[in-house]
């Protein structure tokens, strides 16, 4: 069983949704970044999403862009990011690690080589923000060869043929975006995406995890009620790093949001037992 499958299973047994926490690798520098990553786990995150900084992040809003700028200014390179992941993996053997980056970072090393390095570092999945289903085939092939899950993005307006491509090419989870636009907690997310989740389930896509704008316990509860298997919180956490918050402050923020994933009906746990 993959780490994602085991994690979703564990959450379902406990009647919880999965809580995913995102940070930019190397933000604000490699050493500080490692301490922040541990703080996410200490706060109770179920899955960790890590950005590899890119100079031109067109899918990101101002907060995550600034994180990439800080990391690059600190001299953080792709190899440093992979080393951070590998070290994190030795400290936390079971938590799923997802890598989020852009096509040119992958292309610079070659798709096969990049994916292999991810596998060696102990990562579980790869999401390439500017590779849509139309261009994803070579990425899916390379990922499969190295046991990496290729995660893809789905939105409320994504047409059915594209959802079908996502279902056939991706694994691990489906990154569902709560609204159009770029990452950021400055605009309210739309949280009720039952039609999208239903379509994904019908087409056999991996479990839906909702991101883009999730930063409050109420967001988490509403997204899970609408049928998401989990949520990802990014910009709200990155803002804490930007403000120079302590690792403990990140932990308590994570634990507050993680708490909001609990207390779903017992039925879920029961259904998981039956499976």
């Amino acid at each position: 069983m993959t780490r994602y499958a085991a994690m979703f299973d564990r959450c379902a047994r406990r009647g919880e949704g999965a809580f995913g926490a995102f940070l930019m690798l190397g933000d604000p520098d490699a050493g500080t970044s490692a301490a922040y990553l541990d703080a996410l786990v200490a706060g109770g995150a179920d899955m960790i999403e890590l950005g590899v900084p890119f100079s031109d992040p067109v899918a990101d809003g101002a907060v995550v862009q600034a994180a990439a700028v800080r990391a690059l200014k600190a001299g953080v390179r792709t190899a440093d990011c992979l080393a951070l992941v590998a070290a994190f993996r030795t400290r936390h053997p079971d938590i799923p690690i997802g890598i989020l980056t852009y096509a040119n970072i992958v292309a610079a090393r070659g798709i096969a080589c990049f994916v292999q390095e991810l596998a060696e570092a102990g990562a579980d999945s790869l999401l390439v923000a500017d590779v849509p289903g139309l261009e994803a085939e070579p990425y899916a092939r390379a990922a499969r060869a190295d046991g990496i899950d290729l995660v893809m993005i789905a939105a409320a307006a994504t047409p059915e043929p594209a959802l079908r491509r996502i279902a056939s090419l991706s694994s691990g989870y489906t990154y569902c975006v709560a609204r159009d636009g770029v990452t950021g907690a400055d605009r309210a997310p739309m949280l009720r995406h039952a039609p999208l989740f239903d379509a994904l389930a019908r087409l056999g896509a991996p479990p839906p995890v909702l991101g883009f704008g999730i930063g409050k316990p109420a967001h988490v509860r509403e997204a899970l009620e609408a049928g998401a298997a989990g949520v990802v919180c990014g910009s709200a956490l990155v803002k804490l790093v930007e403000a120079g918050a302590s690792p403990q402050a990140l932990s308590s923020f994570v634990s507050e949001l993680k708490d909001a994933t609990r207390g779903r009906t017992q039925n879920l746990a029961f259904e998981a037992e039956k499976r």
Partner: protein
Amino acid sequence: MRLDGRFGRFGGVYVPEILVPALEQLEAAFLDAQEDEAFRNELEGLLATYAGRPTPLTLCRNLGGSARIYLKREDLLHGGAHKTNQVLAQALLAQRMGKTRLIAETGAGQHGVATAMAGALFGLETRIYMGADDVERQQLNVFRMELMGAEVVPVTSGGRTLKDAVNEALRDWTASYADTHYLLGTVAGPHPFPLMVREFQRVIGKEAREQILEIEGRLPDAVIACVGGGSNAIGIFSDFIGDDGVELIGVEAAGKGIDGNEHGATLQRGRMGILHGAETLLLQDEDGQVDDTWSISAGLDYPAVGPEHAHLQEIGRASYVGVEDREALDAFVALARSEGIIAAFESSHAVAHALRLAEERGDNPILLVSLSGRGDKDMASAQRLLAR
């Protein structure tokens, strides 16, 4: 998508999944419009009565020695550059798709000015993203855009130039595509932009080819155009691609020297990469971080290039050379002094290479140069640079 959007191994659709439906809608609207006589008639009418097509072909009287240098005068087009050709076409498509708002990136400001014109003409709300450094060096164009009712947003991220303006426009579009058309200014970006913008700029070469055949009774020896993203070059090259005897030469900004790191010579110094939606040549470091570029001309200050140029270079149909800031400035002055024509800094790069060829080649060649834009916008910079 109906087409694969590739030029050999270059091109493609590298955008967030969210934007794919918007590009599919645009591709469909473009392909349908190409078959629609009413659309073609409306565009031709606008190009003739609003933009001022056909533009003349001017033989240099004093420059070039034994070579005959012909200038295709896109500088005389309404708006002051070739950009107007395809902006009018895309604005018609935007209307056809029911969009009420235009966004665009701009480097030198010429594309922004053309988009602001179209916004005013068709009553579309218009926002232009422009690198903060470019806002600084192209003040006149900023004012022109604002005068025509566009909002100009200075972009302070990254290198504060054209690349960063494209990033910001793409970000806007992922949130606004339902009512907004991204009026991309060149043959770069995701499919269908490289194909669509080429088809709308093809008129430059189509006219020039007819004009030179009429005047000279034969085709030129070489066609020369500057290349930033590459739209005026593709526009003048396209109808000559099948003419094997005609050399196609793109001129990139060699800035302060092509062997340093302050230039925009993507085709000569770039490596394969992915930026702004397309797989193409790219100035970047080993990790794939995109370089900041430099050119005296804001319009050539771009680290990527249209994928079709990368393909034309790879198959050997076009060649690409560099012209430094200094040489471009000399050509800018020479054209003003000898011909009474003030060209844009961008176009001055193409003029510089034509003058170079005229000197080197002893076979009395006929050289066709795309004079893609006029130099009014560069007056403040020229004054400063020439005072030194």
